[in-house]
């Protein structure tokens, strides 16, 4: 039994969204719903200003609020620690969504169930990488067994200062970030789902 996790090195994320689209393609995620995306955050004042790129997804928390919130047992933890949702057991009471501090779960109208990132358990079972990891052009994402000291993820986690998103939520995420510019606190109030109401309207008022 492994303890699967992901490490995202923000130093080499170029914000390209290959991960976001690969995830869409892998699961045909409906428009308006997101399992994985990249947050863009500007910080600073002209001319000392930068933009951070922060890929976000379900953290497959060690202490997963969604798991304990689900009244029907649809949210389950797989042997290697991934937290997934069994479509057939979900009656869409949305307790998991209300419980997740990362807003990582959405109502999938096509599947008629709550849905979220699965750490691509269908791919990893075949020895492949999750779709987002495979798609990342700069290899800023590393996936593997956090308990195996030989694994690349464990080596890189040990070699760098790693942190997690919303540590104060106390869920012990298994998505780790190398974040030397301290970007994660800037998205403390955000979740994985994209705010689809934030656009400026093109209709004259």
């Amino acid at each position, binding site marked *: 039994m492994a303890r699967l996790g992901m490490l995202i090195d923000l130093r080499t994320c170029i914000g390209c969204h290959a991960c976001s689209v690969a995830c869409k393609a892998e699961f045909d995620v409906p428009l308006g719903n997101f399992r994985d995306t990249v947050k863009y955050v500007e910080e600073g004042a002209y001319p000392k200003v930068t933009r951070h790129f922060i890929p976000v997804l379900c953290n497959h928390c060690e202490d997963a609020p969604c798991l304990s919130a689900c009244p029907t047992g649809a949210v389950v933890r797989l042997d290697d620690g991934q937290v997934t949702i069994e479509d057939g057991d979900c009656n*869409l009471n*949305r*307790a998991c969504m209300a419980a997740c501090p990362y*807003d990582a779960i959405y109502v999938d109208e096509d599947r008629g169930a709550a849905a979220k990132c699965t750490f691509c358990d269908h791919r990893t079972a075949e020895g492949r990488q999750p779709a987002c990891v495979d798609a990342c052009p700069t290899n800023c994402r590393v996936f593997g067994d956090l308990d195996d000291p030989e694994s690349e993820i464990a080596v890189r986690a040990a070699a760098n200062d790693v942190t997690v998103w919303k540590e104060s939520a106390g869920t012990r995420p298994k998505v780790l970030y190398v974040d030397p510019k301290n970007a994660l606190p800037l998205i403390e109030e955000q979740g994985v789902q994209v705010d689809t109401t934030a656009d400026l309207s093109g209709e004259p008022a």
Partner: protein
Amino acid sequence: MTVAWGPLLAAYVVLVGLPTGLTLMTWWVGRSGASVRLERIGAWGALVALVAISVLLVADLGRPERFHLMLVRFDNLASPISWGAKLIALKILLLLLVVHAVERRRPPDRPLPRLTKVVAVLLLAVSFALALYPAALLARSWASPLAGGAGVLFVLTALLMGAAVVVLLGGEGRTALLGLLAASAVALAVEALALAGRPGDRLLLAELTTGGSAPLFWGVAVGAGLLLPAAGLLTLPRNRVVTALCAVAVLAGAAATRYLLFAVGS
């Protein structure tokens, strides 16, 4: 952040106080000699309200045809909703029994006092659990950290709602109502103190007291729900109209408090 629960759930959280309070208050008022009328109304009222609320709860599901999963699955007893659904089912069953017993025209042959007692106690316990349960439900949601200390408020508002209905139906609930109002005021103050302690919570408190929720909080929850009825009941204790109006105000105030507990965090 997505708001997972909408108006139906809000209505549920508000209304679930009614059957709970009704059962508990009927029992409380009836301790020293229950009246058939009060018990009948209490049992029927709670049953009807609970069934109606169950319908709300099922309708809120994205897959209502799978509502039963909450009742038949025991894999996750850490889930408040799992408990809540089962408690509601159990209470409906118990209320059916009581209604059946109350409605029986002739005296029962070979009554079983112990069984009666067990059912009564069970009913009270389940009702009390249902009174507290919204606090557990909301405590699990990132959207409503208010709920952390709100168990007492949920119980008190449920009791207030029950007491108000009892009073409206002509029962003797005035003293109970005044006591509950005082207790609620204290509980609200304690909750406010607790919220003022942490930065994130302070924002919520500000939203409640000076933000968009302020009119509902001060006007309905505190003003109509606590101050007005307390003043009315204390100054004009014998006036039936005033008492009835106070009861209605209490109902509105309790409902507002419960709604705010649900909504202010999101």
